[in-house]
């Protein structure tokens, strides 16, 4: 009976002290506007969750506990010793079909040399690390099927084998679902040859590393401390002097950077957005490179990994993120001024994001 009383005393103390801490920290007695679509119950849970003492440590404990019970997949992320792998799945097969149709219609209408590049995710390239028997979408087959359906209409760029060959070199972040700078270089090297120009060798770049290490979006879903945090590396073109202007265009705002790697974003909690400042609805990159060609690129955030290499080959690159643009922004694009067009997406985006069909708004 004594042990029960001691247990109860400790349990009640833990609950009451935690409650007081939560209320004091969260400012419970301040008036808060009610959020739409959020029930009182959910709001209470969120309030407690966001203000719980040692919340981060407890989430890691939960991840460890689930791992001990054999659950190597948590919130759609496979936990391995080396990487957190996002288990991407095709939610609706019609989305991919519609994206194929939209791109081929656009290309047939505009008659500008166009290329499609699908980039596999880390889960495909590091699939030998996945838990035994774990199902994984066959991204190689998916890419081949998409490319086959576009034969003769769009030129395709196959980076799968190249990334597979270099998989031990740290080409994907461990905790973020994206390519590293080095991974971006290998993608650029394949794309450059397809676009018809020579690849700048790696020793033309100086590598600078971020001052700290970071945990990415996959870590937020599966906080497993044994996976090492990521170091962000920046590849500065050093062979010749170059100046850059990166203009981010939003529906109601324009932001300009004069560097490919705005370093203030490292400390602002968005380290992976320090490549070009992220991928806004429209990004226009101009450089002092002695070339006249203009490239139009429809892509997602994977493009940020290889664009710093590509922009030394064009006078201007316009990057369009179709998931963030308004129809007017797309309609205002003057397709005829571009010499080449590239559609570049991660397999996950191409498979599941229907906004790619917005390309049909372009005239």
């Amino acid at each position, binding site marked *: 009976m004594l042990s029960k009383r*001691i*247990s*109860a005393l400790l349990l009640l103390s833990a609950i009451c002290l935690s409650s007081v801490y939560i209320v004091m920290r969260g400012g419970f007695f301040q008036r808060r506007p009610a959020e739409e679509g959020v029930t009182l119950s959910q709001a209470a*849970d969120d309030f407690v969750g966001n203000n*719980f003492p040692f919340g981060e440590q*407890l*989430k890691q404990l*939960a991840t460890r506990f689930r791992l001990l019970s054999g*659950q190597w997949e948590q919130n759609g992320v496979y936990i391995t010793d080396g990487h957190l792998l996002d288990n991407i799945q095709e939610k609706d097969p019609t989305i991919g079909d519609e994206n194929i149709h939209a791109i081929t219609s656009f290309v047939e209408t505009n008659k500008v040399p166009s290329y499609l590049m699908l980039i596999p995710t880390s889960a495909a390239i590091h699939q030998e690390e996945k*838990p035994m028997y774990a199902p994984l979408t066959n991204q190689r087959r998916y890419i081949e099927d998409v490319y086959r359906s576009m034969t003769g209409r769009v030129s395709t760029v196959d980076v799968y084998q190249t990334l597979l060959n270099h998989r031990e070199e740290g080409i994907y972040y461990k905790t973020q679902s994206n390519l590293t700078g080095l991974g971006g270089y290998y993608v650029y090297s394949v794309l450059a040859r397809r676009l018809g120009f020579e690849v700048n060798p790696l020793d033309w770049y100086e590598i600078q590393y971020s001052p700290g290490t970071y945990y990415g979006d996959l870590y937020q879903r599966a906080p497993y401390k044994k996976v090492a945090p990521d170091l962000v590396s920046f590849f500065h073109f050093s062979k010749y002097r170059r100046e850059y202007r990166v203009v981010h265009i939003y529906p109601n705002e324009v932001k300009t950077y004069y560097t490919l790697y705005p370093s203030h974003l490292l400390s602002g909690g968005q380290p992976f957005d320090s490549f070009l400042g992220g991928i806004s609805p429209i990004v226009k990159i101009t450089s002092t490179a002695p070339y006249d060609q203009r490239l139009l690129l429809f892509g997602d955030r994977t493009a940020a990994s290889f664009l710093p290499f590509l922009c030394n080959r064009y006078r201007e690159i316009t990057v369009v993120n179709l998931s963030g643009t308004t129809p007017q922004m797309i309609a205002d694009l003057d397709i005829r001024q571009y010499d080449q067009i590239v559609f570049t997406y991660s397999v996950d985006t191409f498979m599941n994001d229907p906004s790619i069909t917005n390309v049909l708004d372009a005239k």
Partner: protein
Amino acid sequence: MPIDSLGFVYLFLPASMAAYYLTSNRYKNFVLLVVSLVFYGMLFPTMLPMALGSLLFDYLVVQLLALWEGNPAWRSLAAGASVVKNMGMLLALGMLARPQALMAPAGLSVINLTSMGYVLDVYDHEAPADSSFVRYGILCLFFGKVFVGPLVTYNQLAPQLKKIRPSLSGIASGVVAFTIGLGKKVILADSVTALYESLRATPLYEMTSMAAWVMVLAFAFALYFTLSAYSDMARGLGKIFGLDLPQNFYYPYQARTVTEFFGRFNMTVSEYWKRYIRLGRPDGSHARLTAAFEALFVTALWGVWFGFSPNCLAFGLLIGALVLVERHLTGKLLRAIPPVFSRMITFLVVILSLVFLLGGEWSQIAAYLRMMFGLGSRPATDETFLYLISSNYLVLLGCLFLSTSSADMLGRWIKKNYPQLDDGLTVVFNIGLLVITTALLL
């Protein structure tokens, strides 16, 4: 907010305990009723007016039953009106409610059945007509049990409400019981429910026979651990607030007969229907037939508790049929063979019966049963199944172990032989359970 949520454990519960214990004994019941109303309003805001209206109606019926003591016809009319109202509401809500992954009665079911039971007890002169709306309100609406039960009678709860005696030992027992129930729900029930839902989402043409077995096994554990966890939490909350609620589950999966299983699973619900379903007591040859109909009626209503659907009704009737078969044919045999074999046979029969409770079309249920007996064209296993098993075998083994009294027996052995170790382990276990449960909820 559900009683297994962060908001409940770390906001609502401490606040309600503070409100209750800072109030003098005279007003504790009133505070408990207010807290229960607030809880129900937060959980089912759109149903609160209906719940209050229903309670007021039955409260008035009870007062009328007392007032019309010498008038049997009017008393029958009043009681009949209450039964029709309550059963009608349950029927309407059951038909309108969306099906849920795991059948659990909505709060109104617990309220209506408790209230109807009290009306019938007063009608039968088995309970007094209490003029206190507060006591009556707590009987029906006590927030700890409103979600899933257990069902209680007036005679079980009223004496405790009339003489409130919160004690430190009661609070201690209650806090520990609540924590264990919470751990059972979050650690076991939620994990095995996720496994069940993964397997259930597998299309029939991709399902293997082993996957079908594991799916039904996972469903059986998910159902048991979810409902029993809520009942444990309800009992724990009851003790915290000075109420001793009845036990609702007693290791049903280690029953030796289906009759025993029926008596151990959701006990208060089966007792409730047995108490109030009376088809008369004819003599001679009609007696056995009437008893059989009564058994089927009771088990059918017990089955419908899990959800108002033909599947749940079929499950209840099947259990009833098996009870009758045991009563007249196989019962003695099952009790004669060694317990381990009778338990295994009963567990197997119960698992197969639970296929009906999975829901879905009859053809789907038939397909699952065919698959389980290897009559489909699919192989026994495939990679998807092997992956799910490799990720969840520890959870399944844990559920199997904890669904029997083995853990209890082990605990008692340690307590008897190593009392100090038992004390230490108890404290560490309870604290560890709260920490891990909270971590998993975050």
